[in-house]
């Protein structure tokens, strides 16, 4: 069975600084997707970024980028120029084609003014 681990229950970053959230996963599949979801206090889960495992290039969405290391089964999220609105729970997730999504335990990110 696939598992997703996030070793940092809580992180904090100064506004305008950069922070990296860690995620590792375990799977025997070669093709899959990895995701970072954000859950603000409103509770609405929002997709931040997605990475297809067959793509070697790391995904980027504005201030958000990932470092995908397939051999090491590592998928970290870097947030640049952190803003107060980035404060939220961040969940790393794995999905195989057409199958269910497996989530990590989450990292609570605080942004300090």
């Amino acid at each position, binding site marked *: 069975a696939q598992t997703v681990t996030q070793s940092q229950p809580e992180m904090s970053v100064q506004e305008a600084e950069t922070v990296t959230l860690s995620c590792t996963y375990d799977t025997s599949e070669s093709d899959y997707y990895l*995701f970072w*979801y954000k859950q603000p206090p409103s509770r*609405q889960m929002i997709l931040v970024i*997605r990475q297809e495992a067959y793509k070697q290039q790391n995904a980027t969405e504005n201030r958000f980028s990932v470092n995908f290391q397939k051999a090491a089964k590592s998928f970290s999220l870097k947030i640049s120029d952190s803003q107060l609105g980035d404060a939220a729970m961040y969940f790393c997730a794995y*999905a195989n084609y*057409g199958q*269910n999504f497996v*989530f990590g335990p989450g990292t609570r990110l605080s942004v300090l003014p």
Partner: protein
Amino acid sequence: DVKVTQSSRYLVKRTGEKVFLECVQDMDHENMFWYRQDPGLGLRLIYFSYDVKMKEKGDIPEGYSVSREKKERFSLILESASTNQTSMYLCASSYRGVNTEAFFGQGTRLTVV
């Protein structure tokens, strides 16, 4: 915009009651999911469905059942609510296959007293 709607944002029920949580999606997604979210545990899959009338048990199905009579609607049923089922419940949907991404409802915070 994709919309996943859960019938209640907050719910308080008594021990032993039969509880129905409803979820509707408007994007013709094949897959629908029910997750339970607890602090420090992330999102744990209760059940998922990949087609009408089809269902598969997730990681924590005990005490729950589901119904999917129409493609757009997926119901979670607590047969006899217990206090240890007090939690946040999240519904999600996705296409089956490539370009998969889970879209979430706003969550139902259920309290069983």
